[in-house]
């Protein structure tokens, strides 16, 4: 293994993800604003300048039984999700223990989902139970044994969300696996040919079905509209991340942006056959990275449009939608067989 290239590749991919991820947040907001006939913020404001602003704010101690852990969750999760990006890079394919497989990637994705459950359990904002208001007084209704914070309810919803809404993206990830007959990222990429002679899985029938299902799963993974029940503004305000302020809020935005980039990058790698290669020794290598980054913009743009036109789905709608797209994914798997 060439350790110099390994380190350069890892650092470059990290920088790319940390730069473009937050830009996606701005693109999302801008597109939604234009659809809503507003000017909207400058593209760099929501994801870049606002993060710098949050980092420079006075430190804020959240109402949490374990504030340090609560604050540590976004940075730790950023590193964990970056591992997914690194594992799709050719420099990491040679790692032992079969880490560069889609099974390992799905396992790592679970960490991000569970992180929200922990986040919700650790937050106690003033907006619900601890609001200084005389609820439990003579004559008031007192029948429940637990008085729950918004964030606690958000954690409960995240558990349901993990159980139900994650199916589509996992099914979609395994469609290229079935087509390439291998769980290794390397095999899935090589199956689609070299960069100058590509035959993307996306342009096959099962690949196209998988891409649609992946897109729905992508929106669900991002907890973006319409799959934002666990963070529904209408009742839970923002759910688990509610108590993030100052630098922690900035970190949370970075996490969201990086997660968007990593999932988009995974899509480009699996369905276009263009992995995030860092090779500055040739024009082909540079072009491949540029093409990869350009294609990662596709899903955030589509998400922005969907989010602008989709109301929050409650579990009543979420179950059939999730199961429906899971069924379509299974159909795609059968086609791939």
């Amino acid at each position, binding site marked *: 293994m060439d350790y110099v290239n390994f380190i350069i590749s890892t650092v470059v991919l990290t920088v790319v993800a940390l730069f473009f991820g937050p830009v996606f947040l701005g693109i999302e907001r801008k597109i*939604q604003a234009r*659809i*809503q*006939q*507003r000017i909207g913020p400058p593209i760099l404001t929501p994801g870049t300048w606002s993060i710098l602003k949050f980092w420079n704010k006075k430190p804020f101690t959240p109402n949490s039984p374990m504030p340090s852990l609560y604050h540590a969750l976004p940075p730790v999760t950023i590193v964990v999700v970056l591992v997914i990006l690194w594992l799709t890079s050719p420099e990491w394919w040679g790692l032992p223990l079969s880490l560069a497989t889609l099974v390992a990637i799905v396992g790592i994705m679970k960490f991000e989902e569970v992180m929200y459950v922990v986040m919700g359990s650790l937050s106690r904002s003033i*907006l*619900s*139970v601890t*609001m200084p*208001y005389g*609820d439990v007084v003579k004559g*008031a*209704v007192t*029948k*429940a*044994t*637990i*008085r*729950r914070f*918004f964030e606690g*309810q958000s954690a*409960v*919803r995240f558990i349901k969300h993990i159980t139900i809404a994650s199916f589509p993206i996992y099914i979609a990830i395994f469609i290229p696996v079935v087509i390439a007959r291998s769980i290794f990222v390397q095999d899935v990429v090589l199956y689609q040919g070299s960069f100058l002679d590509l035959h993307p899985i996306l342009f096959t029938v099962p690949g196209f079905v998988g891409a649609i299902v992946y897109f729905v799963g992508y929106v669900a993974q991002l907890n973006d*509209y*319409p799959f*934002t*029940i666990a963070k*529904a*503004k*209408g*009742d839970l*305000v923002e759910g688990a991340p509610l108590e993030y302020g100052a630098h922690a809020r900035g970190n949370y935005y970075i996490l969201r942006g990086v997660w968007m980039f990593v999932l988009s990058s995974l899509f480009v790698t699996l369905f276009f056959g263009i992995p995030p290669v860092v090779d500055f020794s040739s024009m082909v290598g540079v072009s491949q990275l540029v093409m990869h980054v350009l294609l990662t913009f596709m899903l955030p743009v589509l998400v922005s449009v969907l989010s*602008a*036109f*989709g*109301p*929050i*789905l*409650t*579990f*009543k*709608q979420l179950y059939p939608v999730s199961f429906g797209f899971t069924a379509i994914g299974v159909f795609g798997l059968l086609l791939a067989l």
Partner: protein
Amino acid sequence: MEKDRGEADVEIPVGLVHPALLEPYRPRFFLQDEVVTDCEITLDAQHRGIERIMEGIPVDKCNIITERICGICSCVHLWNSVRVVEKGLNIEVPERAQYMRVIINELERLTSHLIFFGHALEIIGHETLAMRAFIAREPFMIMLGELSGNRVHYACPIIGGIRPRCNPTDDLCAKSLAQLQPATEYLKDYADRILQDAMVMSRIEGVGVLTKEEAIKYHAVGPTARASGVSKDWRTDIPDFKHFDWDVIVLDDGDVKTRVVQRVLECLEMLKIVEQGFKNLPKGEVRTTGWKLGKMPITTCYHEAPRGELYDSYGLDEKGNVRHYKCRTPTVTNLGAMEVACLGEHLTDAVLTLASCDPCLCCTNR
């Protein structure tokens, strides 16, 4: 059959500060899993003591303060307060002033209903349609600004008529009439867009049902009651509205969708009234003079505010100062119905159900 207030495992208190509530009130939801089995709403976090302020002040000042009870339905508060004196002292109002009062009031009702659409759609998470509600609202706000001089507190009715600055010229009437046409078209397209959106419908259809029996039992008023089959609109009892040809919209289903549809149809009736008002606006004076303030027994007037029944009552002493002012706004009578309507719903839908009854806590906590 009436809904049961069942046992609960979890309580989630919401508010006073919350993006879905807009104003400070405190609903406490009692849940089994995520289904609301009981709900209790508490008020008065922003009590301003307006009724106490009124005691002993000149009636003209009192009327101006009544307008400050609410920023959304300010005109109807002022108008109803003025009607109390006019009724108590038998003061005639010129026909042109009656028309203008109705026009301003119905434009205000339109803007209020459009805020409702924006609020409800924001809660279900459809930000685009919520934003468009405010785009649809803007022409009516501009019209109100041009007709009265203000976009929010119009200060139009005064005892015996309307303020002279609210007396439009023929040119202004023609201009307003011309503005009405495109605004109406946009509103109709907007309403169609909401009602044809399958995802929006899936969120509001069959949710938050308030039956006719419950609406009567808990004394629901206004559009909330009329969407549950209760045919009561105080405008039918007010002489100023007799000049106009319009219908009271009553629907039966009582769910959130019906409350939205009821308001959409009501908006079209308001537009009919406003159009007739501009077309048939009579010539003449806009205020009567020659009346004198004096002792007046406690007199009561009802009006139909955008959210329902509005009640004002007071008397005057020998100097024309207000005594025993009392006001009851629609939301306070709707609260019981709101609590019942959200029983059996998912927590997210319960908040939507409360919003669909269009509470105004600014009026209620006056």
